[in-house]
């Protein structure tokens, strides 16, 4: 049958494309269905952080596995320079309260085996000399880094496509159907696709689709914004974040700075049909950046953008086979930090779908972990 494959993947984001690639590598053919273009959602709308520090212990192993085994050779493996740069992550503090927040995060990550520590403001400035003296300390994880999310998504797509994966864009999935007890059919506005397994990875949109087979994941859609400067002379390699979460970002290989930031009003942005920037976020982010990096005050912003994150109730994703709907594998709720772990997740999904031994234990990310207060 024309619209049949061993696996139907719903969602042509970085997770879907990575899964398609790792499946194809195992010789499993899939069809990837995407409503818009490849990488439409959060995959192309994020800051590009590939970090392990400040991760929840439940997903930290995924980040560490990626940083150690997958990211370093990804460009070579996929045949596209994904601009992975593993030169460390500085999380900055300006106040004593900030330091306390960071210390807690460092302690937790450290106890889980990550090489991360607290350093002084001056030590931080030795690593990244452009920082203002308002910075009084930082957490430092030398094995963190960043990559180009747009290129990473498209690189997984390109390689998977070369390996024979069928990608179809412009397909709006309305429903998953169970046939004889298993999730088999994927109904779109145009046609029906059929697979032995179905992988659902469409960010927040996974929720209404999963609902069609009676599965609901408690998550909310939150609008986040980012901005990019014109190319600047090469300044530093580190991925940056702050304890205050007022901005994060890095300098890209191209020379432009990519920064994200939050205003505190994100959960309350009014409903809109597609993500668009607000009138106030970019200004707020710029104020945040200039406090830490006054040297950038004359850098020109050429563009801003917005994207939705699928913020899960407990802020870590669901990556699981759905027991009650055999044949369905779900990967969603990445809560704004899915990009960095996307290669690992792609690998794990390929294992889940093919029922092979899992590289990592992901029991903590099961779909039915959400319980109401006792």
């Amino acid at each position, binding site marked *: 049958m024309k619209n049949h494959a061993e696996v139907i993947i719903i969602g042509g984001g970085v997770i879907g494309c990575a899964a398609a690639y790792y499946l194809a590598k195992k010789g499993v053919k899939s069809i990837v269905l995407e409503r818009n273009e490849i990488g439409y959602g959060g995959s192309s709308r994020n800051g590009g952080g590939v970090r392990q520090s400040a991760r929840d212990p439940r997903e930290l192993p995924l980040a560490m596995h990626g940083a150690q085994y997958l990211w370093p050779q990804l460009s070579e493996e996929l045949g596209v320079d994904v601009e992975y740069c593993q030169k460390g992550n500085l999380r900055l503090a300006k106040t004593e309260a900030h330091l306390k927040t960071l210390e807690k995060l460092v302690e937790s990550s450290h106890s889980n085996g990550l090489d991360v520590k607290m350093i002084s403001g001056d030590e931080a400035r030795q690593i990244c000399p452009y920082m203002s003296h308002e910075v009084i300390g930082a957490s430092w994880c030398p094995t963190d880094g960043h990559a180009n999310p747009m290129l990473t998504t498209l690189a997984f797509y390109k390689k998977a*496509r070369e390996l024979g994966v*069928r990608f179809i864009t412009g397909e709006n999935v309305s429903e998953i159907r169970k046939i004889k007890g298993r999730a088999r059919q994927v109904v779109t506005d145009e046609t029906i696709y059929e697979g032995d397994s179905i992988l659902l990875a469409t960010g927040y949109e996974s929720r209404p689709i999963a609902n069609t087979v009676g599965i609901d994941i408690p998550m909310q859609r939150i609008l986040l914004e980012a901005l990019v400067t014109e190319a600047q002379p090469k300044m530093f390699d580190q991925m940056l974040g702050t304890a205050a979460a007022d901005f994060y970002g890095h300098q890209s290989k191209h020379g432009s700075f990519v920064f994200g930031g939050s205003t505190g009003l994100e959960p309350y942005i009014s409903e809109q049909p597609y993500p668009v920037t607000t009138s106030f976020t970019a*200004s707020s982010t710029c104020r945040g950046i200039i406090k830490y990096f006054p040297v950038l005050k004359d850098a020109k912003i050429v563009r801003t953008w917005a994207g939705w994150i699928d913020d899960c109730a407990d802020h870590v994703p669901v990556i699981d086979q759905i027991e009650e709907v055999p044949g369905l594998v779900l990967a969603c709720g990445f809560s704004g930090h899915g990009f960095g772990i996307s290669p690992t997740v792609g690998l794990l999904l390929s294992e889940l779908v093919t029922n092979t031994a899992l590289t990592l234990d992901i029991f903590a990310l099961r779909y039915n972990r959400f319980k109401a207060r006792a």
Partner: protein
Amino acid sequence: MSKVVERSQDLGPCIPQNDDDLIICRCEEITKGEIRQAVHDGMYNLTEVKRYLRTGMGLCQGQTCSRLVRSIVAKELGISPAELELTSARSPARPIEMQTYSNEVW
């Protein structure tokens, strides 16, 4: 909603053309050959080409090149340029210094 596009079309080989080294996106210095190759690499719309190559990501934000890129991509795909949606427009409409941007008056 965008129309259904099969991404495994046989576009034939990407045969070099003698004007492949023509610069199309002046801000980012992207050539016609690179754009044509991107289509053969699977980038079937302007947004993907942009993300893949940086066409239209520079100071002018595609003001000059978007039509040019569109016609090259369309030709490579064998479709009419009008079938290809332009990449989205976003604030700021002109490049703006961070200092200025951060200084808001309500």
